[in-house]
Every structure is written in structure tokens, then in C-alpha cells.
């Protein structure tokens, strides 16, 4: 979870004004550093989708209302459409593309397929990033908790019953040996 305070991340602490034109920015996404030139007004979501070709994070509203752009910054879920990319320098960004390990699906991804927890699939990456974080946060204890804490992720196909079932499955599969598998961050 450590925030990188090495010399390379120092521009974050500069007192000079940056922008409005392109600025060199280093983004660490799914463990890989990417050097890009970005205007300071570029959102994390647009940086991921248009500059880094990581299109798994979706743009449903660009207004922070739908949750389709949910990613993790330093392990916490955030709305990438309401986050400026330049503020993520020195932080660890994790997207849906970072959830698989060596091509192996995360248990939540498998559970989503098994429970048919999506139809069109557009909200799915955001749902899954929220769902995994939800369990980490300890907010998946009851069905009511799951429904409440997943309500920031809209699914217009209304696959909500499947989404809840998938989260329950993953939670219950983990429950017998808490902490046995650290997902890292």
C-alpha cells in the first residue's frame, strides 16, 4: 500500500503550476510504470482508456453516478472519471486488467460468469472491482450489506441478483480460512 516517495515521484510536490498544456506524468498501473504526456485536466479514466489502451474501465456517465469506471488507487476503490490522472502520480492504480494473475481469472471473475452476473457487460469491470474491494473492506457480511454497498454500481441490464450471488460465493469460499490468501494491493 506504500505511496512511492522516491525521487521520480517528486514532481508531485513541486510548487510551480503545471499545465494547462501537456505535462510528463508517470502512472503506475497494474504494477507497470507508464510515462505519458497529459494535460492536467485529463481524468484517470480517459488516461487509462485513451492513452494507455486499458479500456476495461468503462465510461458510463463521466459524472460519478454509475460506477462503471471503478478502479483501485492504493487499494481503495475510486471513480476514475472523477479522479484527475495527474493526482495519481506515485500511487498504485489497479484496473480490471490487473485482476487476473498469469491469465488466471480471479475467483470473483469466475463467479460472475457462473452466476451470469451480467448481460451487456458494460458495467461488469466496475462491478467486479467494487465486489472484490467490498469483501476486503468487510462490507459483504450480509445480503443487505452487499446490496447497499454495491448500490454505487448501476447495472441497466439489472443483473443484480446474479451479482449478489457471485459476491456471496466468493465471500463464503474465503470465510473458512481468513487471510490465507493475500491479494496484495
Amino acid at each position: 500500500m506504500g505511496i512511492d516517495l522516491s525521487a521520480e515521484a517528486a514532481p508531485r510536490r513541486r510548487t510551480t503550476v503545471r499545465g494547462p498544456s501537456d505535462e510528463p506524468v508517470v502512472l503506475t498501473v497494474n504494477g507497470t510504470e507508464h510515462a505519458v504526456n497529459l494535460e492536467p485536466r485529463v481524468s484517470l479514466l480517459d488516461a487509462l482508456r485513451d492513452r494507455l489502451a486499458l479500456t476495461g474501465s468503462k465510461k458510463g456517465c463521466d459524472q460519478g453516478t454509475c460506477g462503471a469506471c471503478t478502479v483501485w488507487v492504493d487499494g481503495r476503490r475510486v471513480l476514475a472519471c472523477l479522479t484527475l490522472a495527474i493526482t495519481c502520480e506515485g500511487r498504485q492504480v489497479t484496473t480490471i486488467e490487473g485482476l487476473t494473475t498469469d491469465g488466471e481469472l480471479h475467483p470473483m471473475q469466475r463467479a460472475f460468469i457462473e452466476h451470469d452476473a451480467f448481460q451487456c457487460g458494460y458495467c461488469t469491470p466496475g462491478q467486479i472491482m467494487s465486489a472484490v474491494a467490498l469483501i476486503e473492506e468487510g462490507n459483504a457480511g450480509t445480503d443487505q450489506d452487499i446490496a447497499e454497498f454495491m448500490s454505487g454500481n448501476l447495472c441497466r441490464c439489472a443483473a443484480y441478483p446474479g451479482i449478489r450471488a457471485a459476491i456471496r460465493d466468493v465471500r463464503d469460499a474465503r470465510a473458512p480460512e481468513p487471510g490465507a490468501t493475500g491479494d496484495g494491493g
Partner: protein
Amino acid sequence: MSGAVGRPVDRVDGHAKVTGGARYTAEIALPGLAYAAIVGAGVPSGRVVTIDAAPARAASGVLAVLTHENLPKVAARPRLLPSLLGAPAPGQSFFPMQDEVVHYFGQPVAVVVAESHEQAQYAASLVEVAYARTPSVTTIDEGRGGAYEAERLFGGLMPGREERGDAETALAEAEVRLDLSYRFAANNHNTLEPPATTAVWEEGRLTLYDSTMGIRASQLTVAQLLGLPLSDVRVVTHFVGGGFGAKAMTWPHVTLAAMAARHVGRPVRLALTRPQTYTSHGHREEQEHELSLGATRDGRVTALRHHKLSITSPFDDWAEPATGVSSQLYACDHYQGVHRLIRGNTMTPTFTRGPGETVGVFVLETAMDELAHELGIDPVELRLRNRAATDPRGNPWSSDGLADCLRLGAERFGWHGRDPGTRARRDGDWLIGTGMAAAAYPVAFFMPAQRARARVYEDGGAVVQAGTQEFGTGMLTVATQVAADALGLPMEAVRFEAGDTDLPNTSAAVGSAGSGMVSAAVHAAATALRDQLVALAVADRGSPLYGADPAAVNVREGRMLLRDRPETGEAYGELMRRNRLADAEATGSWSPPPLDTPHGLLTFGAQFAEVAVDPELGLVRVRRMLGVFAPGRVLNPKLARSQLTGGMLWGLGQALLEGNRMDPRHGRWGAANLGEYLVAVNADVPEITAEFVEVADDVVPLGIKGVGEIGQVGAAAAIANAVFHATGRRIRELPLAAELVMDPPGTPA
């Protein structure tokens, strides 16, 4: 044979969708891509007096600003026809930026193209437009005086009036009569993926990556608007983030993207913003219904008069047809259905899930609940008593199932023994009520021939193709299942490809018709290929099947076998290698039965709901929902259930949450984002079940009647009827707003 059809297999595109690997339209990366942003009119009516694009043109990264002053004129304006017909299908007959006149708020008045998305958005805000505003009509209340009866609807496809017997006289003579009025707020689709188009010109040929339910509709419409040969327009869509009717027609932004790309000589992406989706494609229109129902004391419906009044655009007589079910569901000799319209300053409304009928059935099925209450007849029994054995012309249903849906639903829901009295059940501060409704939705048959192609390789793999689209219905999965069974191959050996107009053509997947018609075409192609290979085998002296009757040959696991001697046979690959064929291929097509087929064509179902109502706050919480449906053959029960429960939850939204109103002062939507236009979220969603009643149907393609809309139909009525049961309050308005549901001050608890 244990086939793939009918099994609850996982989606074949599941892996792509859970990993972020599925590419949607606005995610297609192209070298030299530029970004377009629409500037929408800030007034609902009037004209553009001046438009100053200079500040925008001077902004960093801007490549061009198009307005009515420099945008080329379109070559033609195709008429509005539903995309299922397989003809050009503009969502409205009006095309913007051809002159200075403004007909609706948000109408495109400029398109800015820039190097980046951010630069385009910013420059769009710099375009200065001065308008001369004229008086506008955007609500029914404002335009009521100008209402007229629509002669034809749907681009002339449907009559505005439907009549049999003498409803007036029958109503006057009825033993019991209800005269009821209803109001419905407008609905907006809000597909989670906002529509987007990326246009690329190469040597005069246009490729469009388009977020659409009908690539062929996009191809035909854009070609006609731009005066291009069809062979020079290709439309591609890999994944579509929801349709629900919003992407059933080709709206102006698609063609504007092509025009912008031609202007700047680079690929251009035009992705609508969330607010722009409210003014870039149609909606479910604001509407009022009046229903008069006559019945005998023992609950037989003798007369129905169903009138709808709604608001349309200045250019098109569009109303979602609301009487297709109310005219047919119950045996009733005297019927009158009339659609009246008001021309207003809105876009042309469009298909929205369960178009027309989901509202029409709400009216009919809440009225039936009122009748049941009035007469003291159980609501399920009342439906059974009035069920129509044939359609109004006396034709038998292609398949029925309504009575079974009602009975099975009542049993599973625990309906029997229900106390019909209102405010009879409590749970703490909550009043508990249950309600039900019948459901029906027309089976649409006005598509042209549908085509597909199948190819088998000598290594045993197969590729099957059709120019259809995947927008969540599971089309890729069910077509793979159908092809696998018809070819006698395991599903894993078959890849189904879609989403490209270079593939064999199908119509837009709308009107619950998609999986049926595409499956039928895929089945035809795969069967033709199988028959071709079997014919080759029985004529090949080197084959163990030489001389056999082709009809006696089965295909299983990629092997052709004699039915009664399965040890005799060979694999496709053996036959093909011996004949030096690397692959074999066939196309197939399916045509619908004639429009005057002597069958009634409805899909039936029944809906049940339980609600809890806090009468002091007006809160309604749906506790459980059950739907039982008879959609004919179910290709994949897992996916069909998802679509049906998804539809039922659209019904929940329709009942309790979804409504938009025009602000008449500004002539624009009151809500134009997902913070203010409410859709169901996870916490709104109760325990929900969809079940099937099996019915065999040899009129519809492969016996498939479709599951896209029937799930929504009747669901809102069941909820509203449950709210009545809980509270004793009959609300003839959607959504059921808290202020309508709550008890007036001073009501005894």
C-alpha cells in the same frame, strides 16, 4: 441426442466481459483518431441567428467546427421505418444542421473536432450561438388543444385506430362500468454505454464502428443520407453496452460522425455524453390513457375502449402502440383503441423496452384489478374467466400458455388464501400487499429473409457467421448452441462471429425477435452444410457411408453415423481430407411466415409481486417478484432467466422510480443524468424468480417467441396492484411517487 440447445451453458463471451477484454465502440483504437463533440441547441424552438465558431476554432487542438453554414447537405431523408423491416431506419425523419431552425432542445447545432477528447469538449463550450426563441410545446398539458387522431403509426406500418363491434353501445349497456384515466411520465433508456460512433474513410469507402442493435440499419440509413453505394459502407460492432430500444434506430449522430471524419480527413470518434443521450435518441414519450371497461356482474368483460394521448416530434407521427395487447388478451366483442398525438418540440420518441404494450398492459391490468376488487372476484380467477381462446379474428394462438402461467404462478407465489381486503397485513410500520397481472407481448414478423453462413474445417472446427450484434441478450452464445447442435459438433468446436455488415445480413435485433430469427438463419446454414457433407459421404465410394440413405445418417460429435448402426460412419475431417477439402461452407436463410398467417401471435406470462409500504413516508419496497412465462423454446434457460428478471426489474423501475418530465419554461428534460433520472440499483432489488411454462410452437422460428420484452410487461401492474392491496390507494400514474402513495395527514394508523 444430448445437444447444447436448452442447456444453461455459460456465456461464450463471459471471459471477455469479466476481464475488460471486450471492446465496445468508443474503445476502438485507430491511428490518427480525432475526437468530435456535439454542441446542442440551448432552446427548444426557434432559430439560430448567429453562430460564432471563431473562439472554438482558435482553441488548442481544434481541427474543425461544423455548423449548418458549412456542413454539406444530406443526399436524401429516408422515411422513418422500424429497423426490423430491413430498410433504412432513421430514428426520426428530420436531420439536423441543414438550416438554422431549431425544433428541440439539444438538437445538434455544431460539431467540434479536435485532437483530443478534452480539447473537443472544451472547444464545444466556446461555440457561441445566439437564438431567436419561439414559443414551444414540450408537454401534453401545453399541447392538449392541438391533439389529433393519428391515421397511421410507426412510419405508416400500423393503423392509429383499432375497432371491432360497438364499444360505445356495449359500454352504455354494461352491468358494471369503469372509466379510468392514467398519466405516465416519459422514460429514458440510459443504456450504460452511451451511444458512440467512430467513422473512418478509406479511398471513398466508409467504415463505421457503431454502438447499435442493428448494424444493417446503420449501413442502410447512412448510405442513403450520404448518397453512397451500400457496398461502400461497412458497419462493425463487436460489443454493445445495452440496447433496450435506444440503439434500435439510426440517429443523426451516427451520420454526423461520418460527415465530420470526411471533413477532417481522419478517423473521428463521436461518443455522446450522458446528458446528450437524452437529446440524441428518442425516449418513451409522456402519455395519458383513458380506459373504459364494461363487464357483467360475474366478471365477463364485454367492452373495452382504450384511448392513448401522447406527444411526438414536429416531424413524425410516432406513438408507441399501446393497444396490441389490450385488444387481444381478453375475449371481448366490443373494442375500440385510438391513438391521439400532439406535435411538440421533442425528438421523435422511439422504442423503449416493451414498447407501448408495457404501458398499455399496465392500464388494462390495473383496471382488471379494479374490476376484481369491485366485483369481489379473485384477480387470478378473473383473468382465467376472460382469457381469449383465439385472437380477435378467431385464429388460434400459435401457442398459448396463459392459463398455465397464471395457475403455476399463483401456486408458486402462495396466492391462494390471500385476503383480498386492503390494509389487511402489517409488518411493524409497514403495510404488506400482494398483486398480480397477466402479461402478453406481440410476436413481430415483419422482417425480411435472414441469412447466415457456416463453415467446417477439416480439423473439425467450425466458424458460423451472421451480421447480428451482441448487446447483452446472449446472441453469441445461443447462436453457438444452435450451430453446434445442427452441425453435430460440441460447442467448443464452434465459433460464432457477428457484428459486421460484411457477414450475411440479418435485421436489427429488436421486438424480441433477435434470437429467434438469427437462430433460424444459423440453423438453416448449419443444416445445409451438414446435409452437403452427408450427401458427399453417401456418394463417396471411399466412405463407410457410401450408398446410405442420407435421411438415415445422424451427426454427433463431429461424426456422421448411421442411425441404426452407429459404429458405421466417419468424421467430417476424414471425408474432407479424402476429398482434398480444407473446408466446406454453406449459407442458409430463413423467411418469416406470411403476415396474414392464420394464427394469433402473442407471448404470454403472469406476474406476481409483494410490497411493503410505509404509509407515513410513502415508501414502497418490493419484497419479492415472481414471473412465469411461456416464451416457446428456451435456447438457454440461464441466459433467458437473466433477460426475463432484467425485464421484470425494468418493470420495478417503471413502477417506482423511472420518470422524466419536460420543464415547460425551458423546454428541456428536468433530468438528464443518472443522479436525477432514477433507475433501479442493487438495494432496490428484491428476491426475484422467473419460471417457464413450456409451450410448443411450430409457427414461430424454431419455436422461439423471445424473452426480450415479456419480462417487463405486467410487472409494474403487479406492483401497483400490490400497493393498492397494501394501502387501499389506487394510483393511476407512473412512477408511483411517494407523495401519491403516502396517507394524507390525519389518516388513522
